[in-house]
């Protein structure tokens, strides 16, 4: 096992312990977390491990950090997600494969059922703005996927994607962070979203299914290459 693997495993443990402290109110909402040195001492791990665990809490929106004044609890986690959290590259791949299945199916249903109003919303959300921050890009990206699920009219597809929000956002944040320097990346995502939009607008379930499957597959491939394009 490499040093990096060990650090990752330790930070998973620290992350879960911190999550429990937030959940049971020991670390109450709005309260300030102990310093990194204090946490390192009380969890019996190094500061890099603590920082990695904190980064994950921050990514999930449970804490916010301000330079010089430490970290604060922003909210308590909602009920235990029905799905496992992302803790490794393997989880990211599993999630992508799962999404290929469910989101391609909800895109096909959306092509059969979408109302005019839903089509308008899909159109409005299909383009991620050029020159925005990676956060804005990822926000809009998720919104579009959520709109497709909504247009399926099936509460199981809608709720499933909602329950996966945190996990999907972690992956999208990674992708958009890698890509933020590239205008071509935004254009690529927009082009793929536009294709999905067109197939749903045309009421073509088979093409909607394959367009969504390809989009999720290609996005995952881009993330795994660590390069936005090419």
């Amino acid at each position, binding site marked *: 096992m490499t040093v990096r693997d060990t650090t990752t495993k330790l930070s998973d443990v620290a992350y879960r312990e911190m999550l429990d402290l937030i959940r049971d109110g020991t670390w109450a909402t709005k309260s300030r977390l102990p310093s990194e040195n204090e946490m390192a001492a009380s969890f019996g791990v190094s500061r890099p491990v603590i920082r990695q665990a904190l980064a994950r809490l921050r990514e999930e929106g449970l804490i916010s950090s301000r330079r010089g004044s430490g970290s604060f609890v922003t909210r308590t986690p909602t009920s235990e997600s029905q*799905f496992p959290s992302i803790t490794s590259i393997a989880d990211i791949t599993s999630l992508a494969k799962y999404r290929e299945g*469910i989101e391609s199916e909800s895109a096909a249903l959306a092509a059969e059922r979408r109302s005019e109003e839903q089509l308008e919303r899909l159109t409005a959300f299909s383009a991620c703005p050029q020159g925005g921050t990676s956060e804005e890009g990822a926000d809009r990206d998720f919104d579009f996927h959520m709109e497709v699920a909504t247009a399926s009219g099936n509460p199981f597809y809608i709720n*499933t994607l909602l329950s996966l929000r945190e996990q999907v956002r972690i992956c999208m944040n990674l992708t958009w962070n890698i890509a933020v320097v590239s205008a071509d990346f935004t254009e690529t995502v927009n082009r793929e979203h536009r294709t999905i939009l067109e197939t749903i607008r045309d009421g073509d379930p088979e093409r909607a299914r394959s367009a969504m499957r390809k989009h999720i597959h290609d996005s995952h491939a881009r993330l795994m290459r660590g390069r936005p394009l090419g």
Partner: protein
Amino acid sequence: MNTRAHCFEFRIGVEGEAAAAAALHRTRHDMIRLKAAMSDLEAHHKAGDYSFEMDFAFHLAVAQAAHNPYFPRSLETLRPVIRQGMLLAISPSGLAPEQKGAAIREQHRDIYRGIVRGDDTGARLAMRRHLLRCHQSTMHWDGAEVETGLEEQGY
């Protein structure tokens, strides 16, 4: 559409994909488990027991053979709704439970064969077809006008 219909529609997407992934990733151990789930179901049916748990166990074994935690978790979360659909699919109406049970087991064998062959497309199709037929066989409970000719119904 009601909850049961939506649930079948969701299962067609999720379990179809799980079966395809299972065909690509199944181990020897998974195949033994699937086979055991099929013979358990048959033993229970032969004894006149059309319980939900045995049928569900097969579906869960397929999801586990996908080696992707998101698939079995979906099924476990939906267990109560799936139970309702499965009970109606086997409940007496039209055909006798023995015939319905035999049809369900034959469809499970189709799925199993696709997975063993490593044929992802075939396994996906077999699972989708199985769930679609189960869905169709419960539609009359909603008072829908469903033609339940033997051939169309497939049961």
